[in-house]
């Protein structure tokens, strides 16, 4: 409605407006409750199902020599070590690239054309679906080494493609907030630009960078699809990144789920160490529990490092 050049909204009674307000408040409160439900449900399922098989034996043995549902029931050690190796390699690849790119964007090309372009490309890279990253790593290595080149390193390359954008963004942010005065003070004392960056800027933003890296690790450690394609899985402990398939936790969970029920004869079921038909589901839930614990642990450590070590005064 327009009156004398003024735009006014339709006139509603106070009653009706209050009613709307209350209705929306209730709706918004209920969405908050709704959002909590899935997390509680998932954690509850994982903990209750996973605790059956989650014991010290499970954590310290691999799957070599394990047959169906027979004793010994095997464990997840090869998957844990594989995950650690692949993730550490991916970190070693992505952190230098990510950190130096962030340094370039913040210190040398702040606001310039190249910086905007790189920023755009980083955004595009962050949107790569995880399975496409796995396909790329597979395609890259099979181009140079022939088809069927599947090992831990290929998986690490796939994961690093997913990690780099996150690392760049968080490093960029941390470097950005270091006040200009600090840098200028350093220049005034005669330090070169590289010295300033290394000794002043990086050192003061180190906790933020470390926590950003840890959170990026927590993100990729649960990626299944690229590792399914790029790294495969094996039953024994393979610590060689460049030779042969390497198991990893998320792929382990998926494989156990996909293999289904085990066959157990009646006599085997009644034995002292019984044959368990549902053993693979138990292993899948237990491995899922291990994975969730690792991810939560990394998250907490990341936050803790930031909280404990971040400089509160600058």
């Amino acid at each position: 409605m327009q009156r004398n050049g003024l735009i006014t909204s339709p006139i509603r009674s106070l009653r009706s407006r209050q009613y709307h307000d209350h209705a929306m408040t209730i709706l918004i409160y209920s969405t908050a409750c709704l959002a909590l439900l899935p997390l509680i449900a998932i954690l509850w399922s994982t903990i209750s199902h996973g605790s059956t098989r989650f014991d010290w034996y499970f954590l310290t043995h691999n799957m070599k020599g394990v047959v169906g549902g027979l004793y010994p029931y095997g464990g997840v050690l090869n998957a844990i070590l594989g995950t650690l190796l692949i993730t550490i390699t991916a970190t070693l690849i992505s952190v230098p690239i990510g950190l130096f790119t962030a340094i370039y964007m913040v210190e040398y090309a702040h606001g310039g054309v190249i910086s905007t372009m790189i920023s755009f490309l980083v955004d595009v890279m962050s949107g790569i679906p995880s399975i496409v990253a796995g396909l790329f790593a597979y395609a890259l290595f099979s181009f140079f080494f022939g088809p069927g080149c599947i090992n831990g390193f290929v998986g690490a390359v796939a994961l690093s493609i997913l990690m780099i954008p996150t690392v760049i963004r968080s490093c960029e942010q941390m470097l950005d907030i270091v006040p200009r005065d600090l840098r200028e003070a350093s220049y005034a004392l005669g330090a070169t630009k590289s010295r300033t960056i290394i000794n002043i800027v990086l050192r003061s933003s180190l906790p933020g960078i470390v926590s950003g890296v840890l959170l990026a690790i927590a993100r990729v450690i649960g990626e299944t699809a690229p590792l399914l394609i790029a790294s495969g899985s094996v039953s024994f402990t393979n610590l060689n990144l460049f030779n042969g398939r390497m198991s990893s936790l998320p792929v382990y969970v998926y494989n156990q789920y996909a293999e289904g029920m085990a066959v157990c004869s009646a006599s085997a079921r009644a034995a002292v160490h019984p044959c368990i038909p549902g053993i693979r589901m138990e292993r899948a839930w237990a491995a899922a529990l291990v994975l969730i614990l690792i991810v939560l642990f990394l998250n907490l450590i990341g936050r803790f490092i930031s909280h404990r070590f971040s400089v509160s005064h600058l």
Partner: protein
Amino acid sequence: MNQHHSQHLLRMILSCLIIFFTLSSAGCGQNLGNNIPSISLPKKQKDAVALSGNYSGAGASSQQSAIQTWIVGFNELQPAVNLSYDPSGSGAGVATFLNGANVWAGSDIPLNNEQLRNSETICHGHTAFDLPDYAAPIAITYNLSSYGLNAKHLHLTAQVIAEIFNGTITNWDSPQIKALNPSIASQLPDLSITPVWRSDKSGTTKNFEEYLAAAAPHDWTKTSSENWSYQAGQGAKGTSGVIQTVLQAEGTIGYADAAQVTSGLGIVAVHVGTNYVLPTDIATSNALSQSTILPSTTGRVIVSLPHTTTVANTYPIDLVSYAIACPVYTNNSKAEFVKQWLTYIDSVEGQDAAHMTSGSVPLSHNIRTKVMETIQSIRVVAS
């Protein structure tokens, strides 16, 4: 303050890394004390050449359980050999065999002509052979537990099965099903049928479709392939996916490796001759004995199952899976390994061991004889 904090942080990170690496190098976590009954362990032969090294195979996931057992059993004969099998699927397994990455492949279907041609490179001028090493019945399983029908075996003919799975028959109380099951006709519910099939490429699908095409040609008109041909019902990934889907709801019916069907689900008795046959070991064994082996001059042993048999107590819906290897090698130890490995897995002991842990059916005598003939022909040539 700043410096102190950063140094402290760096020290923490370093110590964490060191702990990680020591943990990772500590222990290889091998499982000991397997429960494989000693009766199925292979007899040690006095003149068997001692082997060592790493050998790997890849291929069909249907054989996976059996191969896990065979690896453990083979390690009793040859403790210094490190074996691994990657259940990456028949297609991928054959591909890695053809490019030399694996010593043998497991496949649910025999090699096609193109793969045979390509094998001449890796087999030094000769074509590779396929030997059956795993046979199991394919059970048709359904879930009508709250109607009390899971314990009673539904009687179905090939025609009715074909019509159920291609979506022609849509309800459990349809007249065709009732006519075949007069004793439980009143218990059949007015519930729609949900056929469950394999959404991934599968030898089980191919064998099942081959049976339907042979036994019910009017109702099953599509050519059999590893991908399911119809749309009715739901697709699930892997045998476990099919079983899980059937378990999760009533009114479902699916096909899967009989050994993997969870106890509690219903199993169909298939019409053969004048009676209805369940997928028991004996019935499957009979089917294997009655199967013909396609003639081959290159040592290939390809089994043709008797889908339209009328002999009593024969279960005609089976999966036969093959091991694919070369007949000719330039490396002495490789040839020796392949010979010993194939001899073991197709031996009576090996087949028994697999039977006990994976539910497969031991190969019949006629098939085994042919297989042993081919294995004997493995030889080494100068490169």
